[in-house]
């Protein structure tokens, strides 16, 4: 294992809180990369920036752990692209990992295949959220989070990323337009008590539903019962 305990990287403003939590949970260093130049980066550019930070701050890493996806756009692309940028063996959606010397063994369920994979350090894995849960924070951890070096903030310049480099090597995709998804449905609105709307609904659409479920549904009048 590495002699140094984990460091953690984040890229956006709201990440600071997460980084402090990581310090509290046992990370030795937390680095936040924050720069106007990097705003609106796609995953291609994000993985480039993370690579620059890793090469500068911890070039002798053994293992990079990434969440399988972010909570905003959920593309799940940054981890694999970081692996590619750093030329590492990698596995996504890992459920369990074991380290034996310099060999990493991982288990995962992908496309309904249960796989056990092995690779040598240095390596990268992305971990899906349902299999590992954060441990509780200890008091020592809290001191670490709010004392010590705290979260180190690096700008693009500190990573030798300038505007012209970023223009040619940064984002590949461009967002042309953002819009709300439109509805194109008939949109019948039913209102009233639960029993009134259910009766109205079933009477009106019983055929549609019985066709879909392959069973017949009896029709009843509103006043038939109760």
């Amino acid at each position, binding site marked *: 294992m590495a002699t140094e305990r984990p460091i953690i990287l984040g890229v956006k403003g709201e990440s600071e809180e997460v980084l402090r939590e990581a310090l509290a949970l046992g990370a030795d260093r937390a680095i936040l990369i924050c720069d106007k130049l990097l705003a609106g980066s796609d995953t291609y550019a994000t993985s480039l920036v993370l690579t620059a930070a890793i090469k500068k701050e911890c070039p002798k890493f053994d293992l990079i752990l990434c969440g399988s996806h972010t909570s905003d756009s959920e593309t799940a692309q940054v981890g*694999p692209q970081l692996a590619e940028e750093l030329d590492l063996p990698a596995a996504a959606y890992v459920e369990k990992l074991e380290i034996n010397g310099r060999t990493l*063994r991982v288990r995962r369920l992908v*496309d309904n295949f249960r796989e056990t994979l092995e690779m040598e350090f240095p390596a990268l894995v992305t971990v899906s959220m349902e299999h590992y849960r954060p441990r509780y924070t200890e008091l020592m951890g809290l001191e670490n989070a709010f004392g010590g070096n705290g979260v180190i903030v690096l700008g693009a310049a500190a990573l030798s990323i300038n505007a012209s480099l970023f223009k040619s090597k940064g984002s590949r995709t461009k967002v042309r337009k953002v819009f709300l998804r439109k509805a194109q449905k008939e949109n019948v609105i039913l209102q009233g008590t639960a029993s009134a709307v259910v009766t109205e609904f*079933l009477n009106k659409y019983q055929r549609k539903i019985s066709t879909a479920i392959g069973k017949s549904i*009896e029709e009843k009048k509103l006043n038939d019962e109760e």
Partner: protein
Amino acid sequence: MMKSKKKNIWVFGDYRNYYQNRVTLQLLSKAVDLAQKIKAEVCALVFGHEIDEWIMEYTAHGADRILAIDDPALKSYSTERYLAIIENLAKERAPEIILIGATDFGREFAPRLAKRLKTGLSADCVGLDISQDGLLLQIAPSFGGNMLAEIVTELHRPQMATVRPGTFKEIPHNYTRKALVERLPLMKKLPKSRVRLVEYERSVEREHTIENASVIVCGGRGMGNKEKFKKLHDLAKLLGGDVGATRPVVYAEWADHGALVGQAGKHIKPKILFSFGISGAIQHTAGLGEADFIIAVNKNPQATMMKMADVAIVADASDVLKTLIKELKKRIRE
């Protein structure tokens, strides 16, 4: 073999299980549409060992050309080897577009391929089209809000996108169709995979069939609590369907992760979708594909899900659910 002078749209042949194969067929169908607009050729890539079945199937489903590499060395899926092979082929043939299914494999493979080819990639597109200036319009959920983004890759080629299973409809097969099948030798310097496959087996865990269910009952936070949420299973059972859930509900552990419907979960295309207490954030609606008939129940008539519905019932979701179950129990005849 003659190389194509036309532009090329490549579809990665992902065939390892039923859903992977279906998404390949769905992408072929979309590729045929796109190809007409930019006068391109649709080309399916098939790598593996003993792959004639897939060559035949992709031909029948719309491929004009197949690039096939059939070799025992490719017997099992390998991200690193496929990367090397496609990198090689792409440099030689410069495809205009590459489409890849957003299966677990594709979601790991496509980002690496895009990076290696130094080009852009949009994940989980819900629509693909050709823009007026001839670019691939990649319509994808974005910004964590209720938004879709139109994304283009202006300056780099190929233009790449992944698409979830169930987003597009495949065209019916036609076994009299012909495609130009190029059987290529395995590249000489195939890299050794640094990731070793120690064991692999088809999972014995129950396959979630939600992607293929014709009736789905989805629930969100508006169900109120876990107990009330569980009632959705009663309705699903009556209708012979499956239960789906939104992200907050899965996070709150009212439902298993396998039931998650949306961008980070399953893509569904049921004939009938019941949506109880769901506001309709894009992370969820991105998974709804083309549900034929949507019934939404929500106290808030302004919810996005209510506007998307064929029938919008303005009422408490849990109350309507209980009454509906009671009524159906009386009325359904097997």
